[in-house]
């Protein structure tokens, strides 16, 4: 089954880390990606640039509205995601728990819609 693992974290926490701590964290992410590739469960994943770089677009009554910033001002923001193909929710939970962001923030697991199943 395919899942999106959405990593939400408070950017302030990461910004407060020392260079060594950040480097260690990136190393962990790298190791996680490698492990998932090895297990043949990795479908994709990316790290997102900080929330300050975000632009939000909506279209209402045919008019395009462009606004500086994320879709909502929340303490924790989307910082990255993985797309994994694993056997069941327990395996997705176990993978999410290995994501560094789960220790400082939270990882939301969402099953993907499988259009072949409809």
């Amino acid at each position: 089954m395919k899942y999106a693992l959405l990593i939400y974290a408070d950017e302030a926490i990461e910004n407060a880390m020392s260079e060594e701590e950040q480097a260690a964290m990136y190393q962990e992410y790298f190791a996680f990606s490698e492990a998932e590739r090895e297990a043949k469960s990795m479908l994709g994943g990316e790290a997102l640039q900080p929330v300050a770089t975000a632009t939000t677009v909506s279209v209402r009554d045919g008019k395009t509205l462009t606004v500086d910033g994320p879709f909502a001002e929340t303490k924790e923001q989307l910082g990255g995601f993985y797309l994994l193909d694993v056997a069941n929710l327990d395996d997705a939970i176990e993978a999410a728990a290995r994501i560094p962001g789960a220790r400082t923030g939270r990882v939301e697991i969402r099953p993907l819609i499988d259009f072949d199943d409809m």
Partner: protein
Amino acid sequence: MTPDPRSAPPTQEVVRDHLAQVLKEKGGALTGALVRHFRDLELAQDTLQQACRRALETWPRAGLPDRADAWLLVTAKRSGTDVVRRAAVWSRKAETLGHERSSDPDPETVLVQRLDQEGLDDDLLRLIFLCCHPALNPEAQLALTLQTACGLDTEEIARCFLSKKKTIAQRVVRAKRKIRAAGVPFRIPPPHLLGERLQVVLTVIYLIYNEGFLATREAERTDLAREAIRLATLVARRLSGEAEAAGLLALLLLVDSRRATRFDDDGVLVELHRQDRSRWDRDQIGRALELLRRTLMLRRVGPFQVQASIQAIHAEADTAADTDWHQIVALYDVLRALQPSPVVMLNRAVAVRMAHGPQAATTVLDRLAAAGALDGYHLFHVAQADCRAALGDTDGAVQAWRRALKLTGNPAERAAIERRLREADDKAVPAQPSKTSS
């Protein structure tokens, strides 16, 4: 499996009763077996329902089958396989089920040979773990377990929890959808997950028991206490190395042993010290104590075993006065270390009152009151009231009982509190000639 042609075919009523009986005993297990077969909870339940409808149609003509459970299982599987084959979009499922086409002349006989109680028990256990998965919120876990493993219908569940039928129905539907969409697995959790998942299952079973515990006799058609004990027995038996599962079973058996004395003839809750101990179920107590003794030897103590040990002390006391309250306080100290919670602290305070007197207990209760966590809990105010009454502060006691009354809707509990208020009233007011009007 053909019926004896000399016997008269069963009436509709006999068929219905027999079906109801089978569902009561085996419904959860059959659902589990079907979930294992179809890998889908809703399909499992739908096909079982269909099989029941088929039974009501055919059994009056063909007679009651020897093994109704096997009959239902075969019929459900067949109707489900048809559904799966017909629906092109379920192509993946159809592939896996295709090989199940049986060429046996009498598939029911074959199934009966393979349908052993252990297999059914395991499927029921898998089903319970499914319903109690952490991906579902606690209310959903409870409602789904009652509906799926215990076979309660929405109305019965709603009545037990004083909820609306619609609320429960929506909750159950959402939970089933989540299970399917999010891929919650149907299995006994692997060793590295078993401990934490079992804790949830045991907690849900405990909640089921507690909801049944306080049901007045009037509220009865559903014996939640029996259901909880049935599930606890299953879990303890199938997971025989798990000390806490056995601990929960021992706890429930001990508390349940007092069922005959829990209510008086007016449906009012009777406190422990007022119960007629000669009417406690001594056989059940004996079995529970033996189970607890063996379990404690595993040396894997947990909260349920400690609670069972506390109940064991009550069970072993011939009279209320013989109760070893100091031991109970000590056990609450152990429990507090394992499972610190305001309710544990409250129960400990009650034990402190019995062991060390109301003044000592008041100190503990005042600390709890300051922390504020138990403000909305009626039993906290009852405990305060009892302490104040013991210290001679009747006004303070009445105030606390009144507060408690506002916080619980359960009729049996309310009656018990109201009786305490009446007793306090009788003591306070000197005897007067009664008024002619009321």
